[in-house]
């Protein structure tokens, strides 16, 4: 029943992603030299503008590619030729912004604005980079979303030493603020003074509380289904008897400690291997302190995402990818809305990075 529920959820997520096209616009310039259309005219032949526009569109495409993240560019390099052969399918349209003709140089230059369907390109990257039956491989993950419950900040411990020498006297005034030690003298100094000391910093002590991980679970599920993997809840792996450490215990440990113990991490990998799950991701989404965004006046919440991805198919799990720490911001009328927006964005980006890393291997 649970599997059916998950399947239904993933189908819904898949359908929802199909309806959203994310487009990007780029402006670029293309030039050609031409032979005049006739001996009586210095004008370029009729098809010259289209030829120059094609060069400009290619330049715009290069601009688009150059904006990819490292992972996406690596994944793209695998499918480059097949995508670029169908480039027109991803170009929603182009407009000629301006053109100029240099009749002396017989050169025609055009500036075009090109709109590219990025979501369609991303889908092709996912589809085309499937490795054999890898698309049907199991992929599981354990993420914990934790928020800073309290931050105990320590004031810097400052030790100041003032040494004052007074003319013709052997008396020195010394005060050490940090240790509350003071040696004073009634005699005032007047001629020469030197100062020094030290500052001791102590790291803030942060305690965490655990929050719902539905955003990352949803984003991972959506990205994995779109990329063709079999997304498996880690809870189902434990439910099948492949491991003993429950998702709740793992999350609890993440909240009480900065990182997982090597024993717990090893237990997760072993459980995945036992259930023939090829890929396993473990990570955290840390909700940092909130502030008021000066531009919009809305609450701004920062989420820091970190993850490690392992190939758990063999005896020793091999680390095959990692994310972050990368920070993402979310704005909202309230802390709750801002947090949700930040988590959604962080989850979406983390999931996409993980898939692109897998595909670029």
């Amino acid at each position, binding site marked *: 029943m649970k599997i059916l529920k998950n399947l239904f959820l993933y189908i819904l997520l898949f359908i929802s992603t199909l309806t959203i096209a994310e487009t990007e616009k780029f402006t670029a310039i293309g030039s050609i030299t031409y032979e005049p259309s006739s001996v009586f005219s210095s004008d370029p032949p009729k098809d010259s503008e289209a030829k120059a526009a094609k060069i400009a569109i290619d330049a715009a495409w290069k601009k688009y590619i150059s904006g990819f993240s490292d992972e996406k560019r690596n994944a793209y390099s695998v499918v480059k030729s097949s995508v670029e052969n169908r480039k027109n399918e991803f170009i929603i349209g182009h407009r000629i912004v*301006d053109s100029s003709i240099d009749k002396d140089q017989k050169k025609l230059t055009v500036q075009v604005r090109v709109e590219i369907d990025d979501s369609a390109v991303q889908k092709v990257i996912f589809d085309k980079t499937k490795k054999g039956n890898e698309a049907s491989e199991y992929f599981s993950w354990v993420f914990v979303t934790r928020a800073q419950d309290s931050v105990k900040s320590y004031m810097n411990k400052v030790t100041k030493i003032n040494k004052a020498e007074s003319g013709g006297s052997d008396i020195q005034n010394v005060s050490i603020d940090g240790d509350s030690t003071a040696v004073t003298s009634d005699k005032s100094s007047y001629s020469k003074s030197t100062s020094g000391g030290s500052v001791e910093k102590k790291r803030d002590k942060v305690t965490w509380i655990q929050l719902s991980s539905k955003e990352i679970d949803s984003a991972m599920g959506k990205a994995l289904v779109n990329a063709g993997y079999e997304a498996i809840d880690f809870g189902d792996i434990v439910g099948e008897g492949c491991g003993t450490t429950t998702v709740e215990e793992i999350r609890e440990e993440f909240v009480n400690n900065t990182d997982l113990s090597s024993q717990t991490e090893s237990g997760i990998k072993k459980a995945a291997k036992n259930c023939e799950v090829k890929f396993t991701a473990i990570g955290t989404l840390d909700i940092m302190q909130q502030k008021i965004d000066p*531009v*919009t006046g809305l609450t701004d919440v920062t989420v820091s995402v970190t993850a490690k991805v392992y190939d758990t198919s063999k005896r020793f799990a091999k680390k095959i990818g990692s994310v972050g720490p990368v920070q993402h911001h979310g704005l909202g009328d309230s802390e709750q809305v801002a947090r949700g927006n930040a988590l959604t964005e962080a989850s979406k980006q983390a999931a996409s990075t993980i898939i692109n890393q897998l595909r670029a291997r």
Partner: protein
Amino acid sequence: MSYLKYALAFFCFLPFAVQTKVHLTEQIDNTEVFDVYWAGFAFLGDFNQRETRYPYSSQISKEKNNGQSVIDVGIGKALQDFNNPNINLKTELSTKPGAIAMAVGLSYEDAYTVKFGSNEYKTTYDLALNIILFDFAEKKIIAVHPLRLFYLDASDSKPSADKNKNIFNKLYSGQLELNIFNEIVKKLNALSLRKAYGNYIGIRSINFKGSTQDLIPDSLLQNNSIETQTAQEFEALLSKNTFVPVVPYTKGELIGGRMPARFSDGSAYNLKLPEKDYLIDLDIRKFKKQEKGSYFNYKSIITVRASTQLGEKVNLKLSRSMWNLKSGSGSGEKDQDWSLYELSLSSLLNEFTKQLATSTPKWTKKHSASKDAESQMDNLRDLLRKSQ
């Protein structure tokens, strides 16, 4: 006899009628009715500058009527007269991909007083608004139609901040001849939406050159206020007279091509502006004051330039004289002279933008020193046409 009068009138006006040439018209697409979702009234710019940029409107927006901002109540009432066959206006926002939302954004507010004679004060209440059409799901701006409103008030003492607020309040609540919301609805009623928009045009820079700076009151030189004010007036005239959406002037207001908009109901979006394809630069080169008989002549001399990434397309030098009776020109104080220079500049920009749409050859010849002025005007018309 009466026929003779009509015939005479006809022949007198015939030469003007013949010389007038229409270059740009409103591009109306009646083939489709668009669903447009009403987003509300917004303050544009950084939230933390709201109180300083809009001291009166921001206070007024906090006043409530049955729990709703008076501004929302006022605009809601005015929208009852909304009647645009091209738009099916919906009051609820939609997050559907591609759904078009419409907002009215305030981008400038000022109450500027100039003293005339010994006991006469003229106050200009100035508001710049933008009607913004944007993709609500992606928060991307599709088109911006600027609107500029002025209200003049004369008094025998310098108006206090309370009086200024009272006037703005009346402008918002429709108690004066000028009603802000009615003007907005008039503009909305005349708006034409299209499936696809052309290229994007906008003002890149406003440059008050050399000695012109000395003639501008100090208060307007602070925070680039004069540049913003002039840019907003110019883009509003350009939009109104040449029927083209204009990407707003951005100096000091927008970071990374984004336009922060805080709505009077508390919601806020960082709207993404389209990149400008055609960039207009306006140089205000000189202001001249000349005396002749019982008149003063206030003259503005400007250069309008337009360019693309491929280079400069338009370079047009223009000027306009404005004759003013000495008795009505004040006593020559900086503030008084400035209000008349400003008027001559406004008149020049207004006439120039009208000429771009419908030209009378004599105007260009009279107001431009450039030999190829007509072809420069045509070049600019070409860019405007591609931006419609």
